[in-house]
């Protein structure tokens, strides 16, 4: 049976009339990199804060590492970087980590280790205030790693980084996932999630819209064939695949089938004397799926606002 390190049921957080998180049910399995995807203001950070015990839910339940959020047991195995990295500007990077290490009873040798992991050893003695944004973010990840946690909660860790810094951060997250750590990564960057995550939960307006692997969310792709004459090709394709699996878009056939069928269809079209100019796999990106899902949510919200709800 798959072990769930994070599990929420009916999780809801209201601030007065405003609903930040609504009836959220998500699961993070041991050893996976879970992408928590949603536009800004979707409720990602509020959810993460509930999971860390910083914010209490209005209703619903959550367990983290089998215990209540914020309990000593759940925090002992959880490392976190929520929102921007928060440190004391007058302390050095090393001293900032020493403060946290003392709070969680971790030997000072671990501070040196995590500084090494994130590549900050050379600047560890400098004041935090003098760090670049990328260095601050890396120090935040170092702090999250201090406890050698089972679960890492990272809230938009590439925020504000330059392309090289983003690539470094993603490589680090992939490496941590490869090392067996479970990572809960919140992001509004689709490419990032697609690159590093095993499973994804899409949140918008405080509600979880879908949860699954990237492939599951993308669904099955389609074969796009540019062929002449188009009508005759459509007839052949419909005979082979069925009426409802063939559509015509932008002067091409779009066939709802898998890549293995592509060669067979190509052969049949050529044998029928048609001219096949191009044949390719038409895969929907996570971005398209995401926009599709969240646009429905936005339409719903707009309609609600319009009707005075």
């Amino acid at each position, binding site marked *: 049976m798959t072990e769930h390190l994070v599990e929420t049921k009916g999780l809801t957080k209201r601030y007065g009339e405003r609903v930040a998180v609504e009836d959220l049910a998500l699961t993070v399995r041991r050893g996976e990199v879970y992408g928590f995807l949603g536009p800004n203001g979707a409720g990602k950070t509020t959810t993460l*804060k509930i999971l*860390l*015990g*910083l*914010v*209490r839910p209005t209703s619903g339940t959550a367990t983290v590492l089998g215990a209540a959020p*914020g309990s*000593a047991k759940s*925090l*002992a195995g*959880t490392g*976190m970087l*929520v*929102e*921007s990295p*928060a*440190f*004391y*500007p*007058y*302390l050095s990077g090393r*001293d900032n980590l*020493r*403060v*946290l290490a*003392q*709070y*969680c*009873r971790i030997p000072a040798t671990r501070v040196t280790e995590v500084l090494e992991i994130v590549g900050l050893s050379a600047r560890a003695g400098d004041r935090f205030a003098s760090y670049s944004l990328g260095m601050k973010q890396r120090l935040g990840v170092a*702090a999250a790693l201090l*406890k050698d946690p089972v679960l890492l909660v990272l809230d938009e860790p590439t925020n504000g980084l330059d392309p090289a810094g983003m690539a470094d951060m993603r490589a680090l997250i992939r490496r941590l996932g490869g090392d067996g750590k479970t990572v809960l990564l919140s992001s509004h960057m689709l490419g990032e999630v697609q690159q590093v995550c095993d499973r994804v939960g899409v949140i918008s307006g405080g509600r979880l819209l879908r949860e699954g692997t990237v492939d599951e969310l993308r669904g099955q792709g389609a074969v796009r064939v540019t062929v002449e004459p188009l009508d005759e090709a459509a007839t052949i394709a419909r005979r082979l695949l069925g009426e409802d699996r063939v559509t015509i878009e932008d002067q091409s056939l779009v066939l709802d089938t898998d890549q293995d069928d592509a060669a067979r269809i190509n052969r049949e079209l050529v044998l029928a004397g048609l001219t096949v100019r191009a044949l390719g796999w038409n895969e929907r990106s996570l971005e398209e799926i995401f926009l599709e899902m969240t646009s429905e949510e936005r339409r719903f919200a707009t309609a609600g606002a319009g009707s005075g709800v």
Partner: protein
Amino acid sequence: MLVGFAAEVLKLRKRPAVWMIVAVWIMLAVVFGYLFPYLAYRSATGPKAALGKQALVQALPADLVGTAVQGFPLFAGALAMLLGVLATGGEYGWNTMKALLTQGPGRVSVVAGKALALVSLMLLVVLTSFAVDALCSVVTASITDSAMDWPGVSDLVRGIAGGWLIVTMWCLGGAFLGIAFRGTALAAGIGLVWALAIENLLRVFSSIVSGLDTVQKYLPGTNAGALAAALGSPTQSAPGGTPGVTTAVGGTQAGITLALYIVLFAVAASVLVKRRDIA
């Protein structure tokens, strides 16, 4: 609690603002406790000579306790409050509170570690203040050829304990305000206005407004001033007396009231941190 204590000590020790405030504290104590009385003694002539001599007496070793604690109810108290505000309010300003609370020791332990570190800092500053004041009194006695009589050990211990009680009360009051207002600016502003202005105004009106006299006997500033008076500091009504030092209540009641305020501020701060969400 001790785990948080070590971390809090590290933060206080390395924070430049803490050193600056302590330096100002000591400097003010020296200037108003020793330099100005000495200058008054040197420059007072004619009918003012008696006042000059009286000022000098306060700067001699025999009056060490009264002189050392005379500034605690007001200016040193305000600085102690500022230290408390910075220690807790800064955590919200830098958003570091969430980092502390997710390390695992528990919310009350975090507050307890912080309170213990501040209480220790106050003891250290009071001891330093007494040591510097003692040195200044020796210098004053030497250059004025005055007697070098020292207060008894029990008086000295009582003075240090009383002084520590006064500034600890203000410091934890500031720490509570920093948590209550989740920042430094508003907490420092309200705290300082209370300590430096409002209580003095209440004292002025207490003789006129019915019931106010009773209320002010339980206020923190009044009790801080009363404890300083009980330890030998000149009251504000006496010639050359110290602002904020009064005899509104007795020393024992003042000591007990200040101790209760310390407990109240620590408990209230813990309750707030335990119950509130960290935004």
